[in-house]
C-alpha cells in the first residue's frame, strides 16, 4: 500500500489522455473529421494526370471551413438532443401511447391507407411537372417495386442477394424477346401484358437454378456467389450478340395494351397512365407480401433467420424456405423488368449492372430491412434525393456511388434498423447487440462436439 494513493484518478491515465477520450471531445473530433471528408467529397471533379487538383481545391479554407462548420452545426444539434432526450421522451410518451391506441383500431388504419393512396394518385398529377412525373415512375416507382421484392429476400429471409438486378434483366429481356424485338424471333409474339406471367415464371425458375446449389452456403459466400451471378448476366447480355443484340440492346418494345371485350386501352406516350398502373401493382404486391409476412411462411422465415438450428427442430426445412424467398424476390424483380421494358420501349445491358443491385439494397437498408413500408419510403427518399441532385446538378452524377457507400456505412453504424424499422427487426438487432442471438442467417451454425 502506498502512503500517498490518489484513488480519485484511475491508475496510469494521464490527464491529457482522459481529456482526449472524453465522449464529448471524441464526438467533436469525429464531426470535424466528417466535415473534412464532406469537404473533400464535395470538391471539384478531379483531373486525370493532376492528382492533387481536386483535394487542394477542396481543402481551400473557405470551402473547408464551410463544411466543418456544417458538420459542427450537426454536432451541436446532436449534443443538444442528447441533453434533452430524456425529457422529450417523457413528454412525448403520453401522446405516443394515445396514437398507438388509435392506430390499433382497424378502420383508422384503413382510412390512413386510403388517404395515402389518394394522395399518391393526386400529387403527381396536380403538382409535378414532366421531369418529376418521369422520375416518379422510372426512378421511384419501379425501384419501390424492386425494393419490396429484395426486402423479402434480405429482410424476411435474411439472405444477401447482390445479383438481384439479374432477374430484372431477365424480365426485361423476356419482354423484348416475346414482343419480337430481339435478333432471335419467338415462336409467337404477345402483348407485353402477357410477358408479366412469363417473366414471373422464368425468374422463378432462374431463382431456383441459382438458389438450389447455393442457398445452403454461409451468408457471406451466398453474397459473393450472387454477385458473381449478377456479373455473369451482364457479361452474357453484352456478349451473346446474336441473342441479346449485345450492347446495342433492344428497341421498339411495344407499350401495354388491353383489348378485353368492351375495354380498349393503349398506354402510349403519356406518363401518368403508366404511373397508375404501377401504383396498382405496388399496392397489390405490398398487400400480398404483407399477408405473407404475417403467415406461417413469414414466421418460418423469421425462425430460419433467427436460429436455423432451432427452426429445424420445429420442423422447418431451411433450404426450402430460403428458396421460396429467393424465388419470390426474383419474380418480383422480373415483374418490374417487364414494366420497365414496356414503358421505356428500349433496354440495354448498361442498366443491369451490379451497381444497380447495390442501389436497390441501399433502398431496402435505408428504409428498413424487413419493413415493406420502409422499402417504399426508402425508394421515395433516396431516389427522390438523387433525382433532385441530378436536376439541380448539386454534384456530378458519377459521384452518386460515393454517397451510396456513405449511406450504407452510416446506416449500419447509426441506425441499422432503417428509418421505418420493422418491429421484429428492431428487437432482433437490439437483442443481438446485447449478446442474445445473431439477428440474421450469417452466423456460423452451432454444433459443438461436447457432451
Amino acid at each position, binding site marked *: 500500500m502506498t502512503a500517498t494513493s490518489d484513488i480519485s484518478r484511475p491508475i496510469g491515465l494521464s490527464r491529457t489522455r482522459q481529456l482526449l477520450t472524453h465522449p464529448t471531445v471524441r464526438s467533436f473530433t469525429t464531426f470535424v473529421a466528417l466535415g473534412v471528408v464532406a469537404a473533400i467529397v464535395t470538391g471539384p471533379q478531379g483531373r*486525370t494526370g493532376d492528382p492533387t487538383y481536386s483535394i487542394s481545391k477542396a481543402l481551400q479554407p473557405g470551402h473547408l471551413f464551410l463544411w466543418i462548420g456544417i458538420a459542427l452545426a450537426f454536432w451541436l444539434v446532436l449534443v443538444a438532443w442528447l441533453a434533452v432526450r430524456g425529457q422529450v421522451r417523457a413528454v412525448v410518451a403520453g401522446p405516443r401511447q394515445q396514437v398507438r391506441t388509435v392506430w390499433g383500431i382497424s378502420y383508422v388504419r384503413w382510412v390512413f391507407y386510403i388517404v395515402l393512396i389518394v394522395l399518391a394518385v393526386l400529387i403527381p398529377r396536380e403538382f409535378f411537372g414532366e421531369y418529376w412525373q418521369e422520375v416518379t415512375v422510372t426512378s421511384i416507382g419501379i425501384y419501390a417495386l424492386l425494393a419490396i421484392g429484395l426486402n423479402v429476400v434480405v429482410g424476411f429471409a435474411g439472405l444477401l442477394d447482390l445479383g438481384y438486378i439479374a432477374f430484372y434483366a431477365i424480365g426485361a429481356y423476356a419482354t423484348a424477346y416475346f414482343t419480337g424485338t430481339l435478333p432471335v424471333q419467338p415462336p409467337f409474339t404477345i402483348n407485353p401484358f402477357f410477358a408479366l406471367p412469363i417473366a414471373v415464371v422464368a425468374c422463378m425458375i432462374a431463382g431456383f437454378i441459382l438458389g438450389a446449389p*447455393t442457398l445452403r452456403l454461409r451468408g457471406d459466400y451466398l453474397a459473393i456467389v450472387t454477385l*458473381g451471378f449478377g456479373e455473369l448476366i451482364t457479361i452474357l447480355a453484352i456478349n451473346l450478340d446474336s441473342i441479346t443484340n449485345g450492347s446495342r440492346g433492344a428497341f421498339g418494345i411495344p407499350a401495354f395494351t388491353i383489348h378485353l371485350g368492351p375495354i380498349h386501352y393503349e398506354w402510349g406516350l403519356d406518363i401518368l397512365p403508366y404511373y397508375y398502373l404501377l401504383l396498382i401493382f405496388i399496392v397489390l404486391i405490398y398487400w400480398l407480401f404483407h399477408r405473407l409476412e404475417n403467415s406461417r411462411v413469414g414466421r418460418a422465415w423469421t425462425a430460419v433467420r433467427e436460429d436455423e438450428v432451432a427452426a429445424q427442430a420445429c420442423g422447418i426445412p431451411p433450404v426450402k424456405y430460403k428458396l421460396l424467398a429467393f424465388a419470390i424476390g426474383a419474380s418480383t424483380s422480373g415483374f418490374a423488368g417487364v414494366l420497365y421494358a414496356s414503358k421505356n420501349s428500349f433496354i440495354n445491358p448498361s442498366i443491369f449492372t451490379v451497381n444497380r443491385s447495390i442501389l436497390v439494397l441501399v433502398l431496402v437498408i435505408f428504409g428498413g430491412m424487413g419493413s415493406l413500408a420502409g422499402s417504399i419510403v426508402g425508394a421515395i427518399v433516396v431516389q427522390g434525393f438523387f433525382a433532385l441532385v441530378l436536376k439541380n446538378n448539386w454534384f456530378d452524377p458519377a459521384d452518386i*456511388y460515393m454517397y451510396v*457507400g456513405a449511406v*450504407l*456505412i452510416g446506416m449500419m453504424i447509426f441506425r441499422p434498423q432503417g428509418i421505418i424499422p420493422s418491429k421484429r427487426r428492431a428487437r432482433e438487432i437490439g437483442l443481438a*447487440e446485447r449478446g442474445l442471438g445473431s439477428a440474421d442467417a*450469417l452466423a*456460423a451454425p452451432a454444433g459443438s462436439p461436447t457432451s
Partner: protein
Amino acid sequence: MCFTSNFWSLTIDGLNNGFLYALIALGYTLVYGVLQLINFAHSEVFMSGGFAGLFLTQWWLGANGSAHGAESVFVVVAGVIIGGLAGGSVAFLLERVAYRPLRRRNAPRLAFLITAIGASYFLFSLAGHLFGRDSQSVPQLYDNKQVFTVFGAGVHVYDLVVAVSAILMMLLLDRVVAHSRLGQGIRAVAQDAETASLLGVNIDRVISQTFIIGGLLGGAAGFLFGIGNSVSYTMGFVPGLKAFTAAVLGGIGNIRGAMLGGIVLGLVENWGVTCVRNSWRDVIAFGILVLILMFRPTGLLGERLGRSA
C-alpha cells in the same frame, strides 16, 4: 487441346497473374481468419496501392519519363513500398472507421457485410472523383526485354519483377505469422478470440495489425498490377473478386491456401481462356468460384476458420 500449343508461355503469364492474385488473396484470408468477415473493400485497398505507386513514379520520372539500369531497380522497389504503405494505411483506416464501431456494438454479421460493400463503393467512387475517371499508365520503369526462355517461352523483366516481389513478400509473411509475436497473436485470435483476450492478447491491436499486413500486400500487388496493366478507379473490382475466389479455393483463413489458390487460379484461368473467347475470361474465375463453393467449400487445403461454434 486448346491450350497445349502455347502451353509454356501461357504458364508464365498464368504464374504472373497467379502471384498477384495470391498477394491480394492473402489480404482476404487474413481478415477472414480473425474476423470471419469478407472485407469487400479490400479491392479498393489494392486500387489505392496502384494509385500511390503511380503517383510516386510519375512524380519521380515525370508522366512520360522512363528509367534505366540502377534507377529502374530503385523506382520499382520504391513503388512497391509506397504502394504497400498506401494499402496498409487504407486498410487501417477502413478497420478503424467502418468495422470497429460495429464490433464495439456487437452488430449482427449482416451489418459488417453491408458496411464492407458501402466502404468499397465509397472508396472507389472517391478515387474516381479525386483522380479522374480515365485509366492511366505507369511510366516506363524498365526496359521490358526478354531475360531468358523456358521451353521456348520468353520470361520478361516484368514476370521476374512480379515473381521476385511476390515470393519475397510471401516468405516474409510466412515468417512473421509462424515466428513472431504478432503472428502468434493473429493465430490465437483466429482460433479463439475470447480465450486469446483472456490470455492477455490485445484483440483490437491484433486485428488492426492484421488489416495492415493484408493491406501492405494488397497495395503492393496494386502497384505491380499497375505496371503491367493500367491504373484506374475501377481496377479493383475484378481482381478483387478473383482473388477472393483464390482465397476460397485454397481454403479461407488458410494462409498457405491463399498462396496456392492464387497461383492455381492464375494458371487455370490463363490455360482456360484459350479454350473460350477472350471476353469470357472472367467467367472462368466465377465458374471456379461457384464450383468450389458447391462441391468443396472448405477449399483445397481446408479452411481454418476462427472461432469454433
